[in-house]
């Protein structure tokens, strides 16, 4: 097994759910006597969002209210809502954790997540606002055959949303379980029910406000923590000096490097933390991930949908610029949150709660407030955790809304009813679709208990980048694009992306898992001997440290036994493989070009007079915003 494979999954961190099996079995972050505090802070934030939903519910009467808040969201509001929609628990918890464990390589993630918005700003936001009405498929159906485009567009939206949603639900369930200690199943049902309440009653109005509230809370919490970190360790230069000089950071680097660390001075080891190469050992994989991020974001249905909520193309532009300012500012802070956690909490304590590092930010909050035994520390932890929870619920609400609009607006009203449905019928269809999809999401979340769901987020981005993005982009900008191309692009993009992930290292390979678990068990006696030597040391601090290490070793062995037991009867992965067929964790490098290629070939081989005839209209409208569908004097486009 290579070094890379033994490390936390490259993409795992994209989901808060990254290391579920580990999380589910480790001890909780909050001491028993402080649980009530966590509970109270959670309740306060939930009460605020429920109140907003109650107020919003009275404003939702038409399908436009439900799907797009009546198009009456301002650029600034939408900017915060986009940030709220995008900064999932993965980016908040996952990236802070990655930086705390892997240093520079973790920070490289932050950059990709911001740069992704350039393509949203330049080629997606304004044209979508000018052409679309409620859904991604509205854009595809404009010049391509409406029914075909809606069916394929809606299926792709449902696929992307489901993958992303399940990963978020599982992450949310684990987070609540870790922090408050209630059962995983109940946690998932709680996340799901809250999200359903927001969407069913408040539609896009409530979803938008929940996302805005969550984004504001997230930024406030992050700024507060970073200011506290700076006040202790100094700003940029001094802070980094502390990081490099920290013995725990140096030890962490030595652990990662293994034999390669010999001959390096402690200062050199600390410096390595600020250099690339600790986490990413497969350069091509990094490139592939970058492609999926940069093009996938522009194809995510819940992000796209946000541009239908603003009144003009200019407001759409303003909202992306605000979103980029907020998202960029936040990701800059992750550098200090992550490195701050490495300094203040230390890698061993972070890994002990969660091997993927997902609890780094909450633990940092606890440490900054005075540690696990202090009231303030636990209050701060509760606050950060509640923000993370609000984050998951807000993202999930946006995803469910996107999927429900695809089901109700595209499939039911657009295809089955041929566009003929009254306002009341449309709103009722939207609510029924929300309940149905939300219910399925809760069931899938419960069913996925203890599963490794990291590949689901990889899949969501890969399908969005390989199927949705080429289809939307080419419909808007290529004269020859037509229905044949859309069908080919959607099919090839989705199938290739899903297929490659199914045979990639993201899946669980029982033989490899068993080998790794066996190694932990086999190495344990030797490590125990080393620890026992330390236990007889005369220095009290070393004895304490050794005791902690002994306890951690015991837990690691127990985990390994569990894994051996769990995979005892399996020999192959989900699709029957012993080992990965395709080495990249993210298929973007292959699937995005193939998606584009299929779209181009499909368009050239298929004759579609309507798509050609509509090109002028699409191009003029997307550039000028002339008479957007359903507004002005134009006839309603259903």
């Amino acid at each position, binding site marked *: 097994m290579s070094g890379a494979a033994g490390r936390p999954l490259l993409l795992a961190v994209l989901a808060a759910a990254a290391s579920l099996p580990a999380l589910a079995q480790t001890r909780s972050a909050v001491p028993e006597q402080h649980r009530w505090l966590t509970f109270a802070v959670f309740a306060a934030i939930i009460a605020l969002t429920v109140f907003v939903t109650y107020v919003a519910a009275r404003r939702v009467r038409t399908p436009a209210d439900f799907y797009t808040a009546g198009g009456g969201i301002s650029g600034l509001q939408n900017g915060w809502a986009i940030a709220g929609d995008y900064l999932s628990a993965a980016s908040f918890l996952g990236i802070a954790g990655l930086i705390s464990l892997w240093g*520079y*390589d973790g*920070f*490289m993630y932050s*950059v*990709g997540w*911001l*740069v992704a*918005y*350039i*393509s949203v*700003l*330049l*080629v997606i936001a304004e044209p979508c606002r000018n052409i679309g009405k409620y859904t991604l498929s509205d854009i595809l159906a404009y010049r391509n055959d409406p029914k075909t485009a809606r069916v394929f567009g809606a299926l792709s939206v449902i696929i992307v949303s489901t993958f992303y949603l399940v990963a978020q639900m599982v992450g949310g369930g684990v987070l609540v379980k870790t922090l408050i200690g209630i059962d995983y199943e109940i946690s998932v049902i709680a996340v799901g029910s809250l999200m359903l309440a927001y969407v069913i009653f408040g539609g896009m109005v409530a979803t938008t406000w929940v996302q805005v509230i969550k984004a504001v809370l997230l930024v406030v919490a992050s700024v507060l923590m970073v200011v506290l970190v700076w006040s202790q360790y100094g700003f*940029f*230069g001094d802070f*980094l*000096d502390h*990081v*490099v000089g920290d013995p725990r950071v140096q030890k962490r680097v030595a652990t990662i490097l293994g034999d390669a660390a010999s001959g390096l001075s402690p200062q050199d080891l600390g*410096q390595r933390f*600020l*250099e*690339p*190469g600790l986490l*990413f050992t497969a*350069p091509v994989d*990094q*490139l592939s*991930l*970058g492609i999926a991020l*940069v093009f996938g974001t522009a194809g995510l249905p819940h992000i796209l949908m946000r541009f239908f909520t603003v009144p003009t*193309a*200019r407001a759409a*532009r*303003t909202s*992306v*610029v605000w979103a*980029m*300012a907020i998202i*960029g500012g936040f*990701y*800059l802070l992750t550098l200090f949150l992550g490195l701050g956690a490495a300094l203040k909490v230390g890698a061993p304590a972070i890994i002990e709660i969660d091997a993927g590092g997902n609890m780094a930010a909450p633990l940092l909050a606890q440490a900054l407030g005075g540690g696990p035994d202090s009231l303030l520390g636990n209050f701060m932890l509760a606050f950060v955790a509640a923000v993370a929870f609000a984050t998951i619920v807000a993202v999930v609400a946006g995803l469910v809304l996107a999927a429900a609009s695809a089901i109700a607006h595209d499939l039911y009203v657009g295809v089955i009813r041929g566009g003929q449905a009254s306002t009341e019928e449309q709103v009722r269809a939207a609510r029924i679709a929300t309940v149905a999809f939300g219910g399925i999401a809760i069931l899938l979340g419960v069913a996925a208990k203890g599963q490794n769901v990291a590949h689901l987020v990889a899949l969501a981005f890969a399908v969005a980048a390989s199927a949705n993005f080429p289809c939307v982009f080419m419909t808007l900008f290529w004269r020859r694009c037509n229905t044949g191309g859309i069908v080919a692009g959607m099919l090839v993009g989705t199938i290739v992306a899903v297929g490659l992930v199914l045979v990639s290292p993201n899946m669980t390979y029982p033989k490899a898992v068993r080998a790794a678990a066996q190694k932990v068990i086999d190495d344990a006696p030797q490590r125990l001997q080393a620890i026992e030597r330390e236990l007889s040391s005369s220095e009290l601090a070393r004895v304490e440290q050794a005791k902690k290490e002994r306890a951690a070793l015991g837990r690691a062995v127990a985990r390994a036994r569990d894994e051996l037991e769990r995979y005892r009867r399996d020999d192959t992965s989900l699709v029957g493989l012993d080992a990965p067929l395709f080495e990249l964790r993210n298929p973007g490098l292959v699937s995005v070009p193939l998606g584009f290629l299929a779209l181009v070939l499909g368009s050239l081989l298929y004759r579609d007079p309507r798509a050609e*005839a*509509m*090109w*002028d*209209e699409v*191009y*003029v*409208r997307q*550039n*000028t*915003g*002339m*008479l957007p569908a359903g507004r002005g*004097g*134009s*006839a309603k*486009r259903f």
Partner: protein
Amino acid sequence: MGDNAIDWAATNADPRFQELHRRKAGFLSLLMIVSVVYYFMLPVGAAWFPELFRIRVAGVVNVGLLFALSQFLVAWGVAALYTRRANREFDRLAEEINREIGDRHLRGAVR
């Protein structure tokens, strides 16, 4: 479709629209290419030229850190450049076209 009275083909062919198209397409492609190339220099540089990223500039601060931070400035810079030009130029051109051509082609339409 012909469900409204605007002659889209004529509008697309109109010199003013073509002017908007030419300026916008050129500017957008330029920004897009610059930002994508600049971004991919980060993973490519970190993976294939790590010794470059390790060069220290001031104290413990190295080229890699500064380059990663510069990505934020470039992303924001691209957004600012585009917004400035779009707000000043593209919106005005689009509005002119909207007003004049839209009105002209709409004349006589059943509303």
